[in-house]
């Protein structure tokens, strides 16, 4: 169960960090008129198409004692970033970035521009417009972003295996533990963890679809 707890810790932390960082990014991606914006969009979407091994490889090198991030961390905290929980958080934030940004961008772009214009004309600041108009109206997108980020981080395997190193209590997440159990011919343990993860994933996705549907229907009927 230690592995499950660790995975949940990781997923919570990554979701929280991404919500804070990805919301301004998504706002900018949705509303910026900059012509080269597509380049940033491509960079954000990269983790979707990159094999986890590519991301894992570069992160491992960057976070190791000879890499730039690792050196910085070594100077600050006395140890390199690879094979630590903090390293795992950083890797997961990068790996799950598109799962947080894209639903947000999609729902920001769907908003009626007239509402935003009206809010500004009535004297609301940009921040106030965001908090009072954009965020409430994009709630289904926010929920989707939260749940997808959480679920994706919970189920992450390749990157975690490469930069985490399978350390019990620090980087052995639930998907790594399942892999370990199968390798060790411990099918009962593997089965228990897999079923738990399957159930959690299903409940999370059912929640997204259920909530989005309800929110959508109520909104339309209003």
């Amino acid at each position: 169960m230690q592995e499950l707890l660790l995975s949940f810790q990781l997923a919570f932390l990554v979701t929280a960090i991404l919500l804070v960082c990805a919301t301004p990014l998504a706002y900018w991606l949705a509303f910026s008129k900059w012509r080269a914006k597509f380049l940033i969009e491509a960079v954000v979407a990269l983790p979707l198409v990159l094999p986890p091994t590519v991301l894992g490889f570069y992160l491992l090198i960057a976070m190791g004692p000879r890499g730039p991030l690792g050196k910085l961390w070594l100077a600050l905290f006395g140890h390199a970033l690879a094979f630590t929980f903090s390293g795992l958080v950083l890797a997961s934030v990068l790996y799950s970035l598109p799962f947080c940004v894209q639903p947000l961008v999609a729902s920001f772009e769907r908003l009626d521009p007239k509402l935003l214009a009206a809010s500004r004309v009535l004297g609301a600041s940009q921040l106030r417009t965001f908090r009072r108009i954009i965020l409430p109206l994009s709630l289904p997108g926010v929920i989707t972003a939260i749940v997808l980020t959480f679920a994706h981080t919970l189920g992450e395997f390749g990157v975690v295996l490469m930069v985490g190193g399978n350390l019990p209590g620090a980087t052995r997440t639930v998907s790594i533990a399942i892999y370990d159990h199968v390798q060790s011919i411990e099918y009962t343990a593997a089965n228990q963890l897999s079923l738990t993860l399957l159930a959690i994933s299903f409940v999370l996705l059912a929640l997204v679809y259920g909530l989005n549907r309800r929110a959508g229907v109520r909104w339309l009927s209003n």
Partner: protein
Amino acid sequence: MFVILMASTKMPEGPQLKRRLPTLLKAAIAPVRFSSLRLLCALCVSVAIPLLSPAQQSQLNIAAAADLKFAMTDLASAYEKQSGVHLNLTFGSSGNFFAQIQNGAPFDLFFSADSDYPRKLNEAGLVAPNTADTYAIGKLVLSSPANSTLDPFKSNWQSLLDPSVKKIAIANPDHAPYGRAALEALKNSGLYEKIKDKLVFGDNIAQTAQFVQSGNAQVGILAESLILSPSFGPGHSWKIPQQQYSPLIQSVVALKGSAHKDAALAFLAWIKTPPALAIFKKYGFSKSLPDEHPIPR
């Protein structure tokens, strides 16, 4: 998730525009606006506490070659009972650990399945002085799973040529010492060219054993220590003669970056005591080069 959990919180007064929103949305917005920061802080604190707690002296992080999967687990529980020191075990291929340790993996001890990787780590200046030690000699077996009609114990190398054999599992020779030894033995058997298209490679020797145990590979070259565990179950095995491969002289080193040097040295001393040696022996490890008697199974 947070939104859903907090949806029942009482809705504070909002401006006019917001009153037009459906009730569900209204209720759900409140925590997004008012509690997300608090929730975030609480989460960060709860997650950070276990991370910030200082390293405990009563813990050791051990990287162990996958052939030690069962032996080291037994050793760890015996040692924990006796000393109270908790051992965090990670199993994998020795080559993989070699790479990870070079990238700063925080292990205290590294039990390799050969002596080359510990020597290279020593040359790289990553090993605590005078800690390198041979702890066991590993042995290769040719094995088939329990329900198989193949019996390597009777037909030895010839069982590889049986028409029922579609896949032959060995560990990855690039980074697993048992894979390297298996490849060498196959070449010395004279059958390598005939069967090389049937080879499948496990990431480490434990995964290779799982390929065989599950029947996905009909036969495989495994570590004796793995097939002697109850998890592997009854199978048929033939001990490959020692002359056919370079001996698997397995060495352990304490790592220089370790924060628990004394505990590491204490464990290294303990594995030479009779109770520990008995566990090594139970899993087929010897301290000297193996004899040629096949194991009856």
